[in-house]
């Protein structure tokens, strides 16, 4: 593998920085109209009336669509949706089907006009009357009515309920604290947008800012009552997703609008709509209790999360890491989930682990301090090499190495156990660390590789690049698997008509599509080999396939490389204009997040003994280290430097991998210090409505971030050995920062974000 791992720059980088990469909202169509949604201004109740007379008189208006005249969609039906691969709907609320309002901001109508400005102008003239009810807007007051969910994404949601109390009471040392995290919003740089183009009444094309073209196609086809495959979803470039670009209602809304006006229609969300209509990370109240013996060995770990949902079964699974990390004989992990009238919570970068590691890793720091143990020594003393719940070995695990490499590069030994020991001018300086972890998932995937007569190769799969580097690393793998340079390879992704791949979520893309890419290249080489062996004018004529190697665009006899035959020559003599191979790889653990209906045809699924969750537990691990400077007079915290070390299997591209971790750490700095969506409980409206109120880090908030990788391939996840890397970077970051703030100031802050008002 000479290309895999190389820190090459993104092959789509130039297109992006020159504005030539086309994003969903830029797919302008001839005769295109514009849709602007109208949002509910109450949190709960019914629409009593909608008066659209004034709106319809405004210039340019083509249609006003509400529940009174909207196209009837196929109703919700969990079983039928699962079968159609349409289960993954952001909120179970097909738009405009009735007059009920479930949250403030819900789409209740859409205005279609000749221009965006005209649509928006007319939308303001719609007069909506409601029969309002009192909304459930406050988590704390709704908790007494909360439910205990049995399952979360196929896993048991209440583990050992009530069993930790005894061992905790018997422990020599205990910490029992409550940690809270706020609502966070994803806010990818590119707002959600869809352009809908109907071809007659049975075929639809959606240019959509989505994390999964296959998923969007299946869901849209299901609700619009179209044949699977008759909705083509195109998303060559996506400006970030972070979990928010699943399928949300605007995509169905614009398809409905386009059908009414019989023209292509564009709908682009405003930043304000992104605060209400495309999901968020729910707030959590987490109670973590740890008990240890006198020597600091954990005896029990209890992690309870109070959170909420609205229109799906999804809730923030903050206990996930507490089922994986550390050797504790007993662990109790439970959830209470209330229902709020608030836009529906959804997956957000490291759902569960991001807020969950804040609570667990803060609690660990607290108990280590009580024990007067170094936090790393405490973690090493309680390290586990087995999955503590399932009992399997981890497929590949180098967490202790992460601690050691991190400590050395960060200079951890300069930290004092006691807080308030280091000052620079007006600032108190502190060091903190935390463990990072995220599951190593893998799904079924199909990849097609095509070689043309001139030796150029196209690799295609319905995967997506949400800014992660999918284009680049896929080209690197194919370059290695065929022995050709990266610049001879064109990567085609982001189109649901390509062979199926998982959506870009759960850090699974690399682990899933690369084994399939590798396999399809093997098939292609096999066919080239067969052609060469059969061709009497080939230097490889009559030789055995196992004697033949490949490199530099040629097949050759291993050990006698002068006996070679170039791919282009083989194709020319065989009079083949192109060769094509499509391989599906399916891990033992199953299809996972991939819509199973659209794999390669004919489907070839090589037997693969990898990613067997009955044999191994698949997780990535890491260690995060922060140095903070605190100005106590003002309560301001600056992260001055950060070290992030990760064990994520093989590194596919050192540069894009590093960028992923840097991005994750920045996300974590935002969560630690500033990101929070606040709601006014009287009305249920977000008060932080735009990026002026919802603060994300600016360049000056981001210190030098020192990234290290263990880089050892995972022998069990796939023949390539790479686990995903998109989410682990954020985990543990806010705990490392909060722990550093404690080390600097002696103040233990358990409520994110650590804004000046809490520290002053």
């Amino acid at each position: 593998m000479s290309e895999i791992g190389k820190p090459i720059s993104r092959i789509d980088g130039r297109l992006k920085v020159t504005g030539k990469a086309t994003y969903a909202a830029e797919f302008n169509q001839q005769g295109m109209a514009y849709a602007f949604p109208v949002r509910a201004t109450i949190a709960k109740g019914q629409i009593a009336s909608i008066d659209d007379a004034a709106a319809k008189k405004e210039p340019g208006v083509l249609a006003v669509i509400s529940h009174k005249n909207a196209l009837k969609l196929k109703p919700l039906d969990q079983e039928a949706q699962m079968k159609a691969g349409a289960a993954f709907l952001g909120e179970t609320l097909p738009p405009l089907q009735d007059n009920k309002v479930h949250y403030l901001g819900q789409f209740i109508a859409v205005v279609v006009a000749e221009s965006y400005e005209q649509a928006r102008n007319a939308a303001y003239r719609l007069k909506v009357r409601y029969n309002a009810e009192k909304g459930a807007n406050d988590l704390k007051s709704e908790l007494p009515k909360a439910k205990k969910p049995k399952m979360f994404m196929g896993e048991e949601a209440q583990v050992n309920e009530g069993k930790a109390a005894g061992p905790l009471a018997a422990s020599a040392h205990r910490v029992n604290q409550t940690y809270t995290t706020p609502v966070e919003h994803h806010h990818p740089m590119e707002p959600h947008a869809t352009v809908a183009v109907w071809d007659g009444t049975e075929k639809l094309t959606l240019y959509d800012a989505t994390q999964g073209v296959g998923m969007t196609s299946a869901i849209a086809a299901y609700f619009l009552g179209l044949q699977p495959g008759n909705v083509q979803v195109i998303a060559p470039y996506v400006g970030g997703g972070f979990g928010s670009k699943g399928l949300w209602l605007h995509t169905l809304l614009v398809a409905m609008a386009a059908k009414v006006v019989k023209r292509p229609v564009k709908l682009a969300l405003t930043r304000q709509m992104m605060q209400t209509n495309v999901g968020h990370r729910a707030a959590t109240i987490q109670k973590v209790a740890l008990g240890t013996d006198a020597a600091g060995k954990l005896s029990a770990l209890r992690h309870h999360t109070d959170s909420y949902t609205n229109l799906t079964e999804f809730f923030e699974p903050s206990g996930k890491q507490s089922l994986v990390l550390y050797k504790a004989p007993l662990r109790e992990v439970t959830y209470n989930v209330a229902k709020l009238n608030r836009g529906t919570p959804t997956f957000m970068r490291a759902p569960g682990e991001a807020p969950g590691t804040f609570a667990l890793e803060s609690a660990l720091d607290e108990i280590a301090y009580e024990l007067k143990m170094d936090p790393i020594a405490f973690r090493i003393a309680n390290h586990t090499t087995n999955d503590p719940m399932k009992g399997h070995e981890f497929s590949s695990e180098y967490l202790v190495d992460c601690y050691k490499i991190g400590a050395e590069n960060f200079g951890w030994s300069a930290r004092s156990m006691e807080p308030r020991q280091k000052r620079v001018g007006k600032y108190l300086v502190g060091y903190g660390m935390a463990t990072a972890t995220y599951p190593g998932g893998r799904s079924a995937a199909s990849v097609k590789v095509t070689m043309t007569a001139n030796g150029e190769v196209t690799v295609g799969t319905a995967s997506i690049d949400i800014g992660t580097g999918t284009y680049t690393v896929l080209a690197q793998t194919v370059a290695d698997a065929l022995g050709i340079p990266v610049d001879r390879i064109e990567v085609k992704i982001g189109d649901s008509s390509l062979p199926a791949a998982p959506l870009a979520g759960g850090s699974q893309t690399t682990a899933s599509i690369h084994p399939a890419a590798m396999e399809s290249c093997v098939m292609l080489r096999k066919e080239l080999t067969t052609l060469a062996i059969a061709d009497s004018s080939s230097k490889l004529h009559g030789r055995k396939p196992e004697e033949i190697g490949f490199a530099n665009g040629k097949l050759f006899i291993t050990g006698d490389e002068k006996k070679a035959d170039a791919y282009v020559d083989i194709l020319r003599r065989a009079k083949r204009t192109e060769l094509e191979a499509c391989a599906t790889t399916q891990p033992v653990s199953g299809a996972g997040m991939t819509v199973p209906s659209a794999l390669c045809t004919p489907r070839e699924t090589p037997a693969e003994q990898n990613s067997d969750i009955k044999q191994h537990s698949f997780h990535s691990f890491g260690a995060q280290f922060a140095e903070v400077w605190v100005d106590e007079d003002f309560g301001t915290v600056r992260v001055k430097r950060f070290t992030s070390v990760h064990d994520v299997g093989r590194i596919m591209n050192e540069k894009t991998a590093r960028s992923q971790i840097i991005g994750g750490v920045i996300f974590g700095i935002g969560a630690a210090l500033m990101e929070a969506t606040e709601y006014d409980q009287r009305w249920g409206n977000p008060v932080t409505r735009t990026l002026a109120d919802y603060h994300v880090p600016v360049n000056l908030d981001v210190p030098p971030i020192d990234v290290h990788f263990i880089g050892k391939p995972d022998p069990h996840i796939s023949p390539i050995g790479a686990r995903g890397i998109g989410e682990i970077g954020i985990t543990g970051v806010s705990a490392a920062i909060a722990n550093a703030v404690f080390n600097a100031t002696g103040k233990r802050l358990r409520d994110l974000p650590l804004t000046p008002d809490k520290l002053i």
Partner: protein
Amino acid sequence: MRSFKFSTANDTGSAITTVSANPTARFLGGGTNLLDLMKEDVMHPSELVNVTRLKYTDIDKSSNGISIGAMATNAFTANHERVRKGYPLLSMAILAGASAQIRNMATNGGNLIQRTRCPYFYDVNMPCNKREKGSGCGALKGINRNHAILGWSEKCVAVYPSDMAVALAALDAVVHVETPGKEQRTIPFVDFHRLPENNPEVDNNLKHGELITTIELPENNFAEHSYYLKIRERSSYAFALVSVAAALSLDGNKIKDVRIALGGVAHKPWRANVAEKWLSGKEATEANFKAAADAELKSAKPLEHNKYKVKMAVEAIVRALSNATSGAGYGINAGLEDNV
């Protein structure tokens, strides 16, 4: 956005005539605030008159200091030699605000008449007396972490967002205005903005059709000892939780003259008269700064979520005065260093 009429004025007289003839017309400067407000339907002027081509785009010497054009951009002003040398406090304050892109667009006149960033003002579905007289104040009993601690009324607890204006208040600027009657009038800066009282819908004492032409800064002896300190939730591109413009004129370590104004605490830039009076003639020591700051903040009335601002304002006054005393705000790097 609702549709509106648009024109570009080539002379001051016609700009004023057009706007004063239409009660719902507005002047348009860089548009960095007004256009946002129009997109969100908070303001819906029927007519905009672009005034950025008018002649008031330079920074000149005046009889008693300098005269800053209302249509000059914030960026041009902050980087102008006359300002950097003679009024580094103003440079620092401007550069502490917004982003480079916004400062390149925003005009000085527009900066003065920008509206509050109170989220209840911005959300047309929420009550706000400033946006819709008589609808109530959403923030008074709502989320008011970023709201006023001084000078607010039951009708409005919003704060005025500008950084530039805090420095102008400290430096005793004078706003020059041309009226629809073709007259020139001047408004002392401290009287330009107003407290909310019973009519928070009125931000300032400018009348409809009046156009800000220049902002005059009198000469002073503060250049070597002035500092703008801004505390915010991230390092840049955020409105102040609390900011302080501090300027001193020293005789040895004795305070001959002092100016202090606060941002982020009131409906207008808050001139700290009490603290100024307390410090006059005293030694420039941290203890004195602290006593003066405490005296100024005695009248603070924090809301449910912003009690932190009182201590923050005291500490910020102390730090800003200390930095001003040491000369940290003077020289070619004024406003560029990391000041929190």
